[in-house]
């Protein structure tokens, strides 16, 4: 592990970006496959093969292209591009704030893609997506602020190599981040806008009008996003790379566990609870930290 760490450290900015662009979809797709397998096991089923998300994506690329209007695909391509951009920035060790803002921009393009078509299901999904964004965005910014307070830098490269355990300074921020991570991973109880399960409720939310290769691009963007978010979990435990990777994977399994055990919340409860949790866990942690210094 330490040798891998050293190899990564010896790379330049562009090599790291390239590594993210090429490797993240493989890791993300594999994680999605493990997710489906583990979810099936929780429900007492055998479950699809671990490589199933890749099969799905390859199949979707072979399907006929049905485009409702010309803005639809444009928005989704921008969604994918900005997700890759923010992930590449993160893994190149650039500014954490810039990563967070470009990820928010990517999410905005996704919502615009949902709004530009005529389907009421898609509109409902897009509205719910906006509510989710408002619910999780403050906490993500608090993560950056908390890390700045401890390490004195917004640079991911500096934060990742900080020798003291960040988690001991930021337990509240980490708890808050775990809470909104459920929204970002699109897991129950917060899978309001589009869900991998129960396709019948609002058909398929945001992705209702997307088919074929565009739907595959949405899936791939989601894989990139998941890897980026697990990278942010890594930062909390950056003092020990082994522990950090372990905790990132454990976090993913924890989210699957939550997903299997909860029914879907209403949007009011989603919004209220995540802001309350952000205030109680995140803001109080940051206040205590600033009083200690």
């Amino acid at each position, binding site marked *: 592990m330490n040798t891998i760490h050293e190899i990564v450290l010896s790379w330049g900015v562009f090599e790291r970006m390239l590594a993210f662009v090429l490797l993240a979809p493989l890791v993300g797709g594999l994680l999605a496959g493990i997710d489906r397998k583990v979810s*099936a096991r929780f429900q007492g089923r055998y479950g699809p093969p671990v490589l199933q998300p890749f*099969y799905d994506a390859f*199949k979707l690329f072979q399907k006929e292209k*049905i485009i409702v209007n010309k803005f639809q695909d444009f928005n989704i391509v921008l969604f994918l591009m900005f997700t890759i951009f923010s992930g590449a920035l993160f893994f190149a060790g650039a500014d954490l704030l810039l990563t967070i803002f470009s990820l928010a921009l990517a999410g905005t393009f996704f919502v615009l893609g949902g709004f530009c078509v005529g389907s009421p299901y898609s509109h409902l999904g897009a509205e719910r997506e906006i509510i989710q964004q408002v619910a999780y965005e403050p906490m993500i910014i608090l993560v950056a602020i908390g890390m700045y307070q401890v390490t004195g830098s917004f640079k991911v490269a500096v934060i990742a190599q900080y020798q003291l355990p960040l988690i001991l300074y930021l337990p509240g921020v980490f708890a808050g981040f775990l809470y909104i991570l459920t929204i970002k991973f699109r897991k129950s109880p917060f899978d309001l806008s589009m869900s991998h399960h129960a*396709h019948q409720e609002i058909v398929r939310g945001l*992705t209702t*009008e997307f088919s074929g290769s565009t*739907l595959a691009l949405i899936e791939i963007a989601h894989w990139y996003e998941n890897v980026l978010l697990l990278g942010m979990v890594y930062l909390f435990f950056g003092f020990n790379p082994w522990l950090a990777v372990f905790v990132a994977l454990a976090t993913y399994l924890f989210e699957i566990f939550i997903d299997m055990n909860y029914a879907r919340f209403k949007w009011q409860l989603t919004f209220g609870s995540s802001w309350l949790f952000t205030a109680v866990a995140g803001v109080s942690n940051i206040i205590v930290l600033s009083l200690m210094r």
Partner: protein
Amino acid sequence: MGWFKRSPWVLHYNATSCNGCDIEVIVSLTPLYDLERFGIINTGNPKHADILAVTGSVNEKSRQVLLNLYEQMPNPKVVVAVGLCATSGCVFQDCYNVLGGVDKVLPVDVYVPGCAARPESIIDGILKACEILEEKYKLQKKQAASG
């Protein structure tokens, strides 16, 4: 590589069925039969679907809905008639309001018999439909290549 065979997504439509076959379709998703182990997902959205599984004898009211759903599905696509009502109209075939089978409206590729169709035979029918899906894709590609 046969990606269609590995990830067929099913849209299920109830065209005036008595719900017997519908329950059996849902049963094939439960832990006992677990359709998802073949990568099959029961989707509610025609734009995501590859296979249209229809139950029921189809009457004048459901005819247009069925056509709409079929037209919204991107190619290649396959229709599976689940249960005796969907294949022939069963005991309802002489009713004045009943068309008597899905094939009066859509080109059906696989007929799954049974009243109600057993989950085993539904799974068998869906897997047969996967192979037809694969053939249709190859044919479509050949036609596109030859212009």
